[in-house]
């Protein structure tokens, strides 16, 4: 018979309360559902702190930005399908590719990984919500407003046009007149705030909010990848914050950070930006590795091979990724010996990734394959990402890079590693976890059509670009002349791009149809081993009616030994209470009372938006905007008597 692990450390009070522990369906379980429910109604829509609610909105928003970025790319590819085309002129094309890169890198790739994590991690870790739930909500609203600001600017001809990397002096005050680049730089502020906040949320959740018994050695590899990613965010985002702030100051108030004539340096921007920019691509890639480590064991019917090596590889990749940034600057006049060092590190980082690939292949080799759509997307990773990694090695070498830098060869490489290393795993993860968050199965047939169209379309779109780069076609060109030998390759690339788009569209159709009328999904449709499969599909608002105790890396596959406690009991069912565990061994540490739904995160985000958007036009907005921001922040943290009384009542005298 299940017996609770221990009663959680007791505090004051003697009033009898409803506590969790009994099986679902009982009064306590219904009380839990009600306690953790989202507030109803129109105004309630702005208040939820449930990580699943916020993550669902966040995922839809990031996927909407993905679609927008894809549409921009579709227009770009239409323009480049023929030489000397004039579908769009140079000004619009510059805005298109800037918006495409900016959208994909800042508004899609990193946020979508963080939001899938904020949805799945509490389920995978066996807890009821993320740490700092109101801050989690704030991160979403900030992100939404930043992205909307950028797109509204774009629709009013104020979209940035200096590239997603915005090199000075082209993006500086003399060569980028108007407010276009200012909107870009301020969008950076929004999105890196959102990313930093989410990173704090994720790190704290992983360290302190695990099910008892889930030692670090039993932490799912997806959680490890998000932990590593979040630490990287903490160190990488400040660099771009610094760079973009200096740029805003140069443009708005006439500082000289990037003005060589007054002692500034155009290369300073490149150093600061790429110190962020290189880890940024690993921020996108490492969660993709986490998805693979989540999907492969399930579809190979065995635990992952080489768990320790995998964890160490993730950590090594994260550290090394901060030492590569100069490989984006090999064509500048930095000293050659220094560049050689970065060649070596850029090649070195292939080793931890190679270790991971070998371990996955070993897992697949020694397992038994369940060839469903999630696994198909994962298998595509081994083709696409490895090819991208090979071209990455070529780009790591200074002499080779001097030929192919800033050509379509790099465009091919970056899409191979990002789409192969992150987007395909993301789609696999989407198909994998769709039954969990929607309660319905996606269509396997449509999934296969989507996969094959995406795979074939992707390769047709991007492989010819390697050849284009070697044959002399530079990047970021709105047109090219006929007779250069580039015509047919570009046309093939455009056809491939539209095929890829069709494949993605089919997945969208699949998702929408399945959400409405797909086959209802059981709790564990794929036979997975991690904790998210131990709860209903979709999960109850409190995630687990009974918080599980964990005895292995794949808790669903490794049930508790006989006589050992299987669940935690004793947390209040009529108040939002959460168990906090220790960092290394996940022993129960204390209970906390969770923040309730609140409109203050939304209002703080509105105030922050006013501050940031105002400061595009005048530096005084910083002053007045700070006052406006302070007000909802005060409201956010203001304690209420009711909450204080509730918390006191939950304490029990020892």
């Amino acid at each position: 018979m299940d017996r609770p692990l221990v009663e959680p450390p007791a505090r004051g009070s003697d009033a009898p309360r409803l506590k969790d522990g009994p099986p679902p369906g009982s009064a306590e379980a219904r009380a839990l559902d009600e306690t953790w429910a989202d507030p109803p109604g129109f105004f309630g829509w702005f208040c939820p702190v449930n990580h699943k609610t916020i993550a669902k909105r966040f995922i839809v928003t990031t996927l909407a930005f993905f679609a927008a970025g894809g549409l921009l790319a579709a227009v770009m590819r239409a323009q480049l399908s023929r030489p000397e085309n004039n579908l769009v002129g140079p000004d619009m094309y510059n805005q298109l590719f800037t918006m495409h890169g900016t959208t994909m890198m800042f508004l899609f790739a990193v946020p979508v990984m963080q939001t899938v994590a904020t949805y799945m991690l509490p389920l995978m870790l066996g807890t009821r919500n993320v740490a700092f739930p109101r801050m989690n909500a704030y991160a979403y609203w900030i992100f939404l407003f930043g992205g909307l600001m950028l797109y509204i600017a774009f629709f009013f001809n104020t979209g940035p046009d200096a590239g997603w990397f915005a090199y000075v002096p082209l993006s500086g005050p003399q060569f980028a007149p108007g407010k276009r680049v200012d909107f870009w730089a301020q969008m950076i502020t929004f999105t890196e705030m959102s990313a930093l906040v989410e990173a704090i949320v994720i790190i704290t959740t992983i360290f302190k909010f695990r099910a008892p018994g889930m030692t670090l050695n039993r932490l799912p590899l997806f959680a490890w990848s998000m932990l590593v990613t979040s630490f990287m965010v903490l160190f990488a985002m400040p660099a771009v914050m610094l760079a973009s702030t200096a740029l805003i100051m140069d443009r708005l108030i006439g500082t000289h950070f990037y003005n060589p004539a007054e002692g500034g340096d155009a290369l300073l921007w490149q150093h600061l930006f790429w110190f962020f920019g290189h880890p940024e691509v690993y921020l996108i890639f490492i969660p993709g590795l986490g998805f693979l480590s989540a999907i492969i064991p399930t579809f190979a019917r065995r635990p992952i091979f080489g768990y320790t090596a995998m964890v160490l590889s993730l950590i090594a990749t994260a550290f090394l990724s901060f030492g590569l940034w100069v490989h984006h600057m090999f064509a500048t006049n930095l000293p050659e010996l220094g560049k050689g060092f970065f060649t070596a590190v850029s090649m070195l980082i292939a080793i931890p990734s190679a270790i991971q690939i070998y371990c996955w292949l070993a897992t697949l080799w020694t397992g038994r394959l369940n060839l469903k759509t999630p696994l198909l997307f994962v298998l595509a990773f081994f083709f696409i990402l490895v090819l991208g990694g090979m071209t990455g090695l070529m780009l790591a070498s200074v002499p080779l890079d001097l030929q192919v830098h800033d050509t379509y060869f790099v465009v091919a490489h970056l899409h191979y590693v990002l789409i192969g290393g992150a987007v395909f795993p993301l789609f696999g993860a989407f198909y994998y976890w769709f039954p969990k968050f929607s309660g319905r199965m996606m269509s396997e047939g449509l999934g296969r059509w989507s996969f094959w169209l995406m795979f074939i379309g992707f390769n047709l779109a991007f492989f010819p670009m390697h050849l284009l780069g070697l044959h002399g076609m530079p990047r970021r060109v709105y047109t090219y002349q006929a007779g250069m030998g580039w015509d047919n390759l570009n046309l093939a690339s455009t056809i491939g791009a539209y095929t890829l788009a069709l494949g993605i569209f089919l997945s969208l159709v699949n998702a929408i149809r399945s959400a409405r009328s797909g086959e209802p999904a059981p709790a564990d449709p794929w036979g997975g081993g991690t904790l998210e499969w131990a709860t209903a599909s979709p999960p109850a608002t409190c995630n687990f009616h009974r918080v599980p105790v964990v005895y292995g890396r794949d808790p669903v596959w490794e049930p508790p030994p006989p006589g050992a406690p299987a669940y935690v009991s004793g947390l209040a069912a009529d108040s939002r209470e959460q168990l906090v565990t220790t960092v290394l061994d996940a022993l129960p540490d204390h209970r906390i009372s969770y923040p309730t739904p609140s409109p203050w995160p939304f209002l703080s985000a509105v105030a922050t938006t006013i501050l940031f958007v105002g400061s595009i036009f005048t530096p005084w907005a910083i002053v007045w905007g700070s006052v406006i921001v302070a007000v909802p922040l005060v409201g956010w943290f203001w304690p209420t008597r009711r909450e204080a009384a509730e918390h006191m009542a939950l304490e029990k005298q020892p």
Partner: protein
Amino acid sequence: MKPLIVFVVASAMLLAGCEREARRFDTPANNQTASEQAQRASPLQPGASQGGPVRDAFRDKSPYDGNAYAVNQGKQLFRWYNCNGCHSNGGGGIGPPLMDAQWKYGSEPAQIFQTIMQGRPEGMPSFGGHIPEDQVWQIVAYVRSMSGQLRKDVAPSRSDTIYAGPPENARMRLVPQPQTPDQPTPQGAR
């Protein structure tokens, strides 16, 4: 009512953005003048002298006072055509300052246009026929920005040059004090 006001204000700001950010490469302000009646008012011309009258300003409003790209082009042309040689970066020297409130020949766009096209006695060359009309309007807009006549979001910011004074978008608007200008006497080109 309040949402309506917010909507109207927001739309106005956004539509202003449309004009501020427009990049018109097809030089719409060329050859619009109704007539070529203005007489040159200076014997000096850059390069070889041309004979004949120059174009009038065809309108009173500057076509580019709200267009950041055009004003920035004007700043670049101010440097390229060596206006700095006499006017420095607005501080004056051989020529009068352009960043102060004193406007000998008027501060209205049409008046500045005439000054550039016709030239003025005592040293201002006549640029009519040497600088295309569209570019002259760009320079006109830039000159007005030097004393803060343009909106802050349109006026250019600092250049990537040695510091030459506060950027135009940080200058207070100086209310123009037109002196009674000497009527320029028509002078034929030499």
